[in-house]
């Protein structure tokens, strides 16, 4: 059990690498940097594989319990003096371990995170070879690996949140890697702050869970949730799950918080591949899948997830149709694919969702790395309108990317086909027209996906060369350090789908079976509990095959074909100034899509307040300005009054002015006091008899006081 017992080393190894870079990075050679950073990730990958293997054997022995390894109590104390009352009034202990948990779900993530991560590290050696801040880049990457692995391996929500924020930080750092570019740092801030909004939701969600279940450890929470004495649709659980989902929306770029992801492409391409395609953005999916027990208790949340997912899918896909920046196309496709995954989760097809994450990680990483290779060979050019006819110039890149495209478009037998088809099928089999609509949205999306992906292929690799000559001159195939990962990923994108060869095609969905300990129990537990039972039961139903399933399969393949065909027709031999079909049909639609439905602008007006409507600034910055004005003029009205009175009196008379200004600390009360001070002093105007008069007046006053008392 070597690996399993030291599972905590998996995240700690990259952390070590990052620390090395932090302390010594500046002083050592690039070679050393790559050795250390890539080395630790390779180690991590090996350990991951070992750990998962050992887990499978261990799990069989311990009837598929998740394996836990608790290092120490991180928050709170074991003595448990920091108690709080749960909703039902029982004492609960505030506690969060630094503890790690391995079960099928986390092992899947563990594998592809370390695996893809490793490949991308290797790829980066070549890609970043000529960049400045080499050590910085790898330090960040390692840090990211640490955070992501913590997120995946955590055994409680708080520790997951650690990773959750950690990956957010790393994406911030890596997006802003070219910090001298304003656009880059803007994008970085946007990413972090939008994620923070999600995290706020996450925190509150956690609190609700703790308040309700008295613990944040998965095992306890899930056990409690499955214990069955929470009825379905419980408002608190609904609230909790919805809030968690807000977090997921932030991290996994769902509507309405997706806006950061496209901008995140400001980062170096390997980063886009690793963080913004393969791993980090799937954290939201992981979290929802992890809390499936809770979500199943909250149908409302499930519906929300499904709807948001579907909408995001089609929304992003539609934008992707017309983008010209090769990375942006991929970015929107990522958002759209994430939408798919949430759709899957939302309809209760957790396994399918996870499976799509798994396959997607390979082909999307591949696509990005390929795009990176293209950009690399095009000496930094990202606009597809200035590419074309690269197929035979950079064959490896072309072939691998083609594989990935076929995969994402859902052409059998490539990976994407299986996962996507599973999702659509699951969506279809839910009863209720709502789900049929969702299915249709997904279906339309599939078509769009095929279209824009092949558009990308054709614009990039076919048609007439549209690049300038010196660029054309420099075009070259990428170095091996980049090529090898591409090839490996290509293999995976081809074959990853076979893990879950659908029964209907004579396979035995091994992937899902593997995940059963995590997802299946609901099926039995909730079988008898009406609606939600069907949510869960879907995966079981799927086993006996029905003709409609074949029909759907055919339809989706057909859609992919149609998309391919349309793209081919429009772009096969695109020359300079080629026409966009959509533009030809209706320019306004085209412009709307090109400008991403003007969402960013709308946000800037409404929420951030970076843009003004006329002279008024709304949003947070608007509030900020308002409150700082308030602070300066109302709360500290003292100062204001001071200035005002000073000005006023200055006009009254110079004499007065000198007295007002004189001395120190012109402060509101002080000023008023000063105003009163002069009468008090003028009272004393130097004449003895006046003094005597005052005395006498006082005397007489005293007497009168008694006369009238």
């Amino acid at each position, binding site marked *: 059990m070597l690996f399993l017992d030291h599972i905590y080393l998996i995240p700690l190894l990259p952390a070590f690498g990052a620390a090395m870079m932090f302390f010594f990075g500046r002083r050592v050679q690039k070679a050393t940097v790559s050795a250390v950073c890539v080395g630790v990730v390779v180690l991590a990958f090996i350990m991951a594989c070992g750990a998962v293997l050992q887990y499978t054997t261990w799990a069989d022995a311990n009837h598929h319990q998740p394996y836990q390894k608790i290092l120490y109590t991180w*928050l709170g104390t074991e003595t448990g003096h*920091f108690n709080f009352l749960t909703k039902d009034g029982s004492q609960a202990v505030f506690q969060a371990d630094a503890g790690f948990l391995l079960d099928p779900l986390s092992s899947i993530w563990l594998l592809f995170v370390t695996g893809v991560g490793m490949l991308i590290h290797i790829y980066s050696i070549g890609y970043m070879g000529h960049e400045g801040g080499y050590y910085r880049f790898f330090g960040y990457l390692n840090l990211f690996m640490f955070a992501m692995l913590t997120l995946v391996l955590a055994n409680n929500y708080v520790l997951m949140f650690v990773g959750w924020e950690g990956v957010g930080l790393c994406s911030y750092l890596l997006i802003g890697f070219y910090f001298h570019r304003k656009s880059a740092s803007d994008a*970085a801030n946007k990413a972090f702050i939008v994620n923070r909004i999600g995290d706020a939701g996450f*925190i509150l969600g956690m609190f609700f869970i703790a308040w309700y279940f008295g613990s944040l450890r998965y095992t306890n929470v899930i056990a409690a949730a499955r214990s069955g004495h929470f009825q379905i649709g419980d408002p608190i659980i609904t609230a909790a799950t919805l809030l968690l989902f807000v977090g997921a929306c932030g991290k996994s770029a769902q509507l309405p918080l997706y806006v950061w992801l496209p901008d995140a492409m400001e980062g170096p391409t390997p980063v886009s591949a690793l963080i913004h395609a393969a791993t980090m953005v799937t954290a939201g999916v992981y979290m929802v899948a992890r809390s499936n027990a809770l979500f199943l208790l909250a149908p409302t949340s499930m519906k929300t997830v499904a709807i948001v997912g579907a909408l995001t899918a089609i929304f992003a896909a539609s934008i992707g149709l017309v983008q010209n920046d090769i990375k942006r196309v991929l970015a929107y496709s990522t958002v759209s694919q994430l939408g798919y995954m949430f759709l899957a989760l939302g309809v209760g097809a957790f396994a399918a969702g996870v499976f799509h994450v798994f396959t997607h990680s390979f082909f999307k990483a591949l696509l990005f790395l390929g795009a990176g290779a293209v950009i690399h060979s095009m000496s930094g050019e990202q606009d597809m309108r200035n590419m074309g006819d690269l197929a035979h110039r950079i064959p490896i890149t072309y072939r691998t990317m083609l594989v990935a495209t076929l995969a994402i478009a859902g052409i059998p037998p490539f990976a994407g086909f299986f996962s996507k088809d599973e999702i659509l099928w699951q969506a279809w089999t839910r009863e209720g027209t709502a789900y049929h609509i969702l299915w249709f949205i997904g279906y339309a999306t599939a078509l769009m996906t095929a279209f824009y992906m092949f558009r990308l292929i054709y614009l990039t690799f076919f048609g007439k060369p549209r690049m300038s000559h010196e660029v054309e001159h420099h075009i070259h195939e990428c170095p091996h350090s980049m090529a090898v990962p591409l090839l490996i990923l290509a293999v995976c994108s081809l074959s990853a789908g076979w893990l879950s060869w659908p029964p209907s095609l004579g396979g035995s969905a091994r992937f899902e079976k593997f995940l059963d300990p995590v997802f299946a129990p609901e099926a039995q537990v909730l079988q008898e509990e009406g609606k939600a039972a069907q949510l869960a039961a879907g995966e079981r139903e799927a086993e006996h095959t029905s003709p409609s399933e074949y029909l759907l399969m055919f339809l989706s393949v057909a859609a992919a074909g149609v998309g391919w065909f349309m793209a081919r027709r429009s772009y096969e031999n695109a020359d300079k100034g080629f026409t966009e079909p959509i533009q030809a049909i209706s320019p306004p639609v085209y412009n709307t899509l090109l400008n991403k439905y003007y969402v960013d602008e709308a946000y800037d007006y409404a929420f951030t307040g970076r843009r003004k409507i006329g002279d008024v600034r709304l949003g947070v910055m608007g509030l900020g300005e308002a409150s700082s004005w308030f602070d300066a003029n109302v709360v500290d009205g003292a100062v204001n009054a001071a200035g005002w009175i000073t000005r006023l009196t200055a006009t009254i008379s110079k004499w007065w002015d000198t007295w007002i200004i004189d001395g120190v600390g012109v402060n509101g009360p002080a000023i008023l006091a000063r105003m009163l001070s002069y009468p008090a002093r003028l009272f004393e105007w130097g004449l003895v008899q006046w003094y005597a008069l005052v005395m006498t007046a006082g005397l007489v006053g005293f007497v009168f006081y008694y006369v009238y008392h």
Partner: protein
Amino acid sequence: MQAHILSVILFTPLVGAILLLFVPKENKDAIRWIGNIFGLAGFLVSLPLVPAFWALVKSGDTTPFKFVEGTANNWIPSIGAGYVLGIDGISFLLVMLTTLLGWVSILSSWTAIENRVKEYYIWFLVLQTGMLGVFMALDFFLFFVFWEAMLVPMYLLIGIWGGPRKLYAAIKFFLYTLAGSVLMLLGILFLYFHHHGVTGVYTFSIPELYKTAPQIYSDYGPYAATLLFLSFFFAFAIKVPMFPFHTWLPDAHVEAPTAGSVILAGVLLKMGTYGFIRFSLPFFPDVLMHTRVRFWVMTLSVIAIIYGALVSLMQKDMKKLVAYSSVSHLGFCTLGIFALSPLGLGGSVLQQINHGISTGALFLIVGILYERRHTREIAEYGGISNVMPVYATITMIMFLSSMGLPLLNGFVGEFSILQGTFMEKEIAGHPGWFWAAWAVPGVVLAAAYLLWLYQRVFFGTVTNPKNEKLHDLTPREVATFVPLIIMAFWIGLYPKPFFQILEQPVNNLVATVHHETAKPDVTVNAAAQPAELVAPAAVVPIANSSMSAKSAPMLKKGNH
């Protein structure tokens, strides 16, 4: 040593100050060395406290105050004031924070202070003693003396070595804070006489007053008790500062020299929160549990969180920005305090420590740029990370800890506070989560203003030619950050010891508060037989006449 360790810690800086008096003021380097040596010494002598205290915590010793020194009324017997020192977990942490920050900020001002060096170090060391005294005093009178005496050196630090509007800021700081604390003096005197009325003994000993003060609510009725509570509240709220009382803070911070700001933010503000914890809670539990009062204090805290963050978002001056961020962070602390749950309270104390570390560091950071360029205008900078990479890195770490990133200190405190608040079943007629939900946006905004600041100052290319020649941190400057960074990571990664130190005092506190309020019969008894209340006082004309609520109005006329 063990017996007088607190006195030693308390007076080491003062000894340094007195020593400095005899150094000729031309000899600046000698002065700097002595100042720094005593700054460090002040920290070192406080270190033995750590294992000693830890041992006590481990041994599960239940005495509320440890290392108690001096006996009640031994200082001014004729009025019942004593030189009594003692610490519990809460004050222990704050004392350590003070000694640490004191050392750091003295170290940080080596080059920052060029003129009148001698006075500077003298006043600074005096200030150090004053602050430590506030946290150690177990006698209300001693507390008050330190509380006020400490204003003077701070006032001079701001006023002499401050920025352009230093006179204004200094006076404002002094008057503002003093105005609060004089009313507190009256409150203290009231407690003093009430204690005498009940027990027939005149004393300012805090543990003694704990026993009687809560009865005021039943003896004098809610109205009087609330007024009394307010007399303390203003003193502390101004110090914290809570929302409407915060306007002295930006001025003081902006004008103060760097080290001054560090101490101001790191320690002085904590005195307010410490006052709430040490006095307001155990003295006036019923008032605090009263819905309307609780509602207001909670609301003010929430407002402070959001409002402070919003204001700092729009600041053009780095130091002002950090200053307002303190308002926001301290809002979290007060929120945790008034949530009156062990978790919230513990988190609040922890957050105070964190704020001391992070914001202290932030002020150092601003100070370093200011020292090089003599401006704090954000617009003046940009692309600094090109010229000062180490500085940029350290800054990033501290920003992250300040915005509460997990595995750094800020998160632990904020998380505990929020959860502690959230879990309360009912706070002022609203469920706890209602308040927590209002506070959470503060976390988002924190990220917003800090990252935006970071972007504007560090990212981009160097546009301003003046910034091209900036040299990166000197070893000394790095040295000032090292302890803070270490603490930040320690609290972030392994906060358990801190929780263990806090759990006992915090739980006692909450227990007393809820216990006091949980027994209505007390109120009934006292109301039923006020005679019995003032019985011991009957011997004493004074007490007799002034201590029973009914005869008090009669005194106004003065003839009978």
